[in-house]
């Protein structure tokens, strides 16, 4: 106990990486409960370490190597060319103006992002983002709208002090043959620590790619049908409410 307290528990793991660590760690630990074997036990041991660094934000290995991927205080404007880019597109059966105006409606936007974050408008183009990771982790940041071309483009970037520095844009373009509008989302997350960080972020890109893709699909369903498909209250032997 004493020894633990003398260790400097400085946060040296970035927010994105913490989310990934906790998620993967939890999966590995749950695996051992499902199917105990030498392999899953070894996985679970690794899993508990991943959860530890995810929850505390401190990685002993990084500490020993002098690595710190927690870049919490960089203003969004410092996001540079090394930031890996995520791009996802979807075609929506609504006109460009309709799609743009549906996306711009804060109530819709909060619904569309509901699988990932609680988004609250604070006025004057500022939104507050709150993401709940596994095991009650919470990440928060504020974003401001940086550029808008009505009917075509909305851009944003996170403000200084963000736990998950990012910037992005969504563009609206007519699809061929009047079938609707092509909506493209581009997001860059600030890679901590230059090129090493960029590699780490790339490896973790799978998660933000799925989050962005899901957001677009949710937006499409809302725009085309007025509702988002859901497994809330879905009956099963595991109880109700049932996201995969």
């Amino acid at each position, binding site marked *: 106990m004493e020894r633990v307290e003398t260790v400097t528990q400085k946060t040296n793991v970035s927010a994105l990486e913490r989310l990934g660590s906790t998620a993967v760690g939890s999966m590995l630990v749950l695996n051992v409960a499902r199917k105990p074997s030498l392999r899953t036990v070894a996985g679970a041991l690794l899993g508990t370490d991943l959860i530890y660094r995810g929850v505390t934000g401190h990685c002993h290995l990084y500490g020993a190597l002098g690595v710190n991927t927690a870049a919490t205080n960089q203003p969004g404007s410092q996001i540079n060319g090394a930031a890996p880019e995520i791009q996802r597109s979807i075609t929506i059966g609504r006109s460009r103006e309709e799609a743009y105006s549906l996306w711009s409606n804060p109530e819709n936007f909060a619904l569309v992002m509901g699988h990932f974050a609680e988004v609250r408008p604070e006025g004057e183009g500022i939104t507050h983002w709150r993401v709940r990771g596994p095991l009650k982790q919470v990440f928060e940041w504020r974003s401001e709208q940086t550029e808008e071309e009505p009917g075509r483009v909305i851009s944003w970037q996170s403000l200084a002090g963000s736990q998950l520095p990012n910037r992005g844009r969504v563009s609206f373009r007519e699809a061929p043959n009047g079938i609707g509008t092509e909506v493209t989302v581009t997001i860059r997350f600030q890679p901590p620590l230059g090129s090493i960080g960029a590699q780490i972020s790339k490896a973790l890109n799978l998660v933000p790619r799925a989050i962005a893709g899901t957001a677009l699909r949710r937006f499409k369903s809302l725009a085309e049908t007025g*509702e988002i498909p*859901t497994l809330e*209250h879905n009956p099963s032997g595991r109880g109700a409410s049932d996201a995969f």
Partner: protein
Amino acid sequence: MRALCWNGVNNLRVETVPDPAITNPHDAILRVTMSTTCGSDLHFIDGYIPSMRAGDVIGHEFMGEVVETGREVKKVKKGDRVVVPSVICCGKCWFCQQKLWSLCDNTNPNAELQASLLGYPTAGIYGYTHAFGGYAGSHAEYIRVPHADVDCFPVPEGLRDEQVVFLSDAAPTGYMGADFCNIHPGDTVAVWGCGAVGLMAQKSAYLLGADRVIAIDRFPERLQMAREKVGSETISYEEVDSVLEALQEMTGGRGPDSCIDAVGMEAHGTTVQYKYDRVKQALHLHTDRGEALREAIMACRKGGTLSILGVYGVMDKFPLGVMMNKGLTIRTAQQHGQNYVPRLLEHTQRGELDASFLATHRFSLEEGARGYEMFKNKEDGCVRVVFTPQ
């Protein structure tokens, strides 16, 4: 409520689970009056298709009575007796408007997961893995039906549940399979499989004007059903040296104009290739035993149509060269049921179709696990078990 849950490979159990509730504005809640086993369920019961979770409520072929509707439901009313296709469709997206219903863009909550497997996501299906949406299935007292106005079809007076329940899946799937064949007068259609879907495909081929229908299976009672209830000619593949040669003999050497595969990934056969498939599948080296499909590709006449209704995963040793060199047209899909239910109800009303003969066994929901055991092992001539939840 009570519901039949999947708890692992070959592990089904009736459990008490929470009731469904209106969750989205276009939802309806149905009291399930009849729900039936489907051969495609056996693939996940046997552990050959992924993304089931312990506790999933299974079942996707059903009918019931509307007990509650969401605020945006306009056509369907409380008290309506309805049949519901197994694919969940929004009716508004491009695919629904093209009548490619099972490709609906807006009903799979796990679309990202499924897109990672298929490239693009498809419609959700009740009780049929999380890749297909994770929706609770119909072997339960109640079920939530999204987009109720699009997916619930009111049943005309005077039809019994057994005549109607198969219009949820087996009949429209079979009908679609025959529709894919673009049947012309004088055509011969061969159908692999005399389960419910195969029998419905045979019946539909006649309804759509086929001259002859030839059914291929190995179970005497099913072949008898094909002859007596549908009017098909039959081949027992265990009793002939070669299905290919038998079909050639029956068609003056030309081969069937169209072939329908109503078997899927757990085919049986008598060849060396079948034994090879069996071993590889047992070792989890591939998911599919494709004996019936290969035979259909080989037997189909040059320039003919191959219509695939069987469910498959990833198959190797696939005779693409045979398909290509013979210039076959391949048509396939999960059922576009919303296209076909109205005309199947009309055929039933006019007495041209009576699918009730498929319901060889009737059980209460509490006997669900036993029902599937019987269905899987084809005990007592079982073609379909129907469950009556209440």
